[in-house]
């Protein structure tokens, strides 16, 4: 059976939309479950605070869900938009867009659940700090969403770019690689920055005087944790906006796909690792404010070393893009 471009496009859009919300549902569900578990624990300790804890649980879960909502938006666009197929590349672009947001939402969903859980528990421990804890939790979970926002941006660019002047080979691989790079590399960064925000919320509830430094060091730790997601975004942009000569050979196409996969998978580990480093650093900065400078410096050096494997992946991806 011979299928025309329009049919292939429909096939790709449906399967892409399914993958988008399918993958996207994983993270948010786990994160929200974690929040609810912590809220139950908190209420059992201090039932009088039940109303406040319940409110903050719902707010935290709503933020954790935003990554899944991004996936839902992409899935709906893929299902209901009328794409005019100017090129066969569009088929791959649509599929890749779904994959990208879906994978990108996993990490942020799981991550954003951690600070919300810690805020619920903290509220019970220090009822006077409730407002400050909620603010800190919101800032922390909002920054957790950054990797999924990157994935969403790449998806939008994938869907709304005009491919009519681009060569089919090797552009289809570049398009698929771009989605994988931004999507996969967002997983680690999302989980990692959630861990950092969790320890910051815990810290505020244990040491109310250290509120300012807990928020500041959390933002610093989260920002550096997300570096590998930014490398993933960079590789996606290069893959999408570079001009490729048309060729029928299979090697250049595989090099582009490889670049995306390499950066995407290589970004997962450093994200989680750096998150663990910063999580512990924030915990101890809060407990020992006099040595904050020393701890911050050790944290930065440790994160840089942990990130080096992500930089190796980026170097290999760049070599695959520009040299091979």
């Amino acid at each position, binding site marked *: 059976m011979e299928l025309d471009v329009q049919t292939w496009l429909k096939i790709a859009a449906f399967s892409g939309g399914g993958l988008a919300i399918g993958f996207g549902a994983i993270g948010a569900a786990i994160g929200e479950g974690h929040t609810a578990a912590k809220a139950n624990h908190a209420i059992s300790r201090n039932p009088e605070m039940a109303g406040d804890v319940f409110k903050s649980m719902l707010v935290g879960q709503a933020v954790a869900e935003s990554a899944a909502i991004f996936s839902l938006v992409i899935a709906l666009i893929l299902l209901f938009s009328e794409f005019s197929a100017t090129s066969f590349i569009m088929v791959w672009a649509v599929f890749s867009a779904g994959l990208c947001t879906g994978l990108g939402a996993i990490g942020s969903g799981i991550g954003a659940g951690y600070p919300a859980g810690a805020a619920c528990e903290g509220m019970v421990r220090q009822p006077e700090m409730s407002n400050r804890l909620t603010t800190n939790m919101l800032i922390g979970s909002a920054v957790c969403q950054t990797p999924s*926002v990157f994935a969403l941006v790449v998806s939008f660019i994938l869907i*709304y770019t005009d491919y009519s002047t681009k060569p089919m080979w090797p552009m289809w691989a570049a398009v698929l690689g771009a989605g994988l790079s931004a999507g996969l590399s967002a997983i680690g960064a999302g989980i990692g920055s959630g861990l950092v925000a969790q320890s910051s919320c815990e810290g505020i509830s244990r040491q109310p005087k250290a509120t300012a430094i807990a928020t500041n060091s959390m933002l610093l730790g989260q920002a550096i944790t997300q570096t590998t997601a*930014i490398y993933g*975004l960079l590789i996606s942009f290069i893959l999408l906006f570079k001009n490729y000569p048309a060729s029928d050979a299979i090697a250049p196409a595989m090099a582009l796909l490889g670049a995306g996969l390499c950066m995407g998978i290589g970004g997962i580990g450093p994200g989680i690792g750096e998150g663990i480093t910063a999580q512990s650093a924030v915990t101890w900065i809060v407990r020992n404010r006099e040595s904050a400078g020393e701890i*911050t*410096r050790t944290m930065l050096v440790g994160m840089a070393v942990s990130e*080096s494997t992500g930089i190796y992946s980026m170097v290999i991806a760049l070599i695959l893009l520009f040299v091979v």
Partner: protein
Amino acid sequence: MQDLGKIHQIIIDLGFYKMTFNVEVIVMTWIIILGLLFFGYICASKNKKTPHLFQVLGELIVTKLYELTEDAMGKKLARKYSPLIVALFMFLLMCNWIGMIPHMGEPTKDLNTPLSLGLMGFAISHYVGIKTKGFKAYIKEYFEPMFFMMPLNLIGELAKIVSISFRLFGNIMGGSIIIMVVSYLTYSIILPPFLNAFFGIFVGAIQAFVFTMLTIVYISSQAK
């Protein structure tokens, strides 16, 4: 929807090189610079013992950011570099917030603005590094822990520019694309103000602060 990623440009052909000007970015940047100068003038003029509203606001911004700089850099460097940090933060904050006004666009949505600010921070931090440690000790750091790690240390340093500028650029551009697409899909009913509040005010302020914090950390880590 069609203008996703389109930029108004003036291209001047010098024969040997084509100069490209992103008009909107330049205009917006000048509007922000003039606004900040005006704000600074009102804050600093007619100062009295019982402060007026703008004096309080200005003093609050300066002292809070100065404290942050002093915590990280120490007194000597902080006195020298805190004006830079305060100016950087206020400029970025206004850059990220101006997009909420209709027909205005964030200058930080264009990669050129974050990249040049990132390069500025990079250059300043390495200047501080050479000045405090001396050239020899500065170069020696690249060969730690082993001499063959030099290329990777170098790439690690350069990757800092990429990460700091793409973080700001990705967040602000992502926010504006999301606002645009969702407003288009919902025919601008109900949702846009909330999206603007979240991606404009909230994320904009956080990212301006993160960029400033990272610049402080880069400078202080070179000084030690």
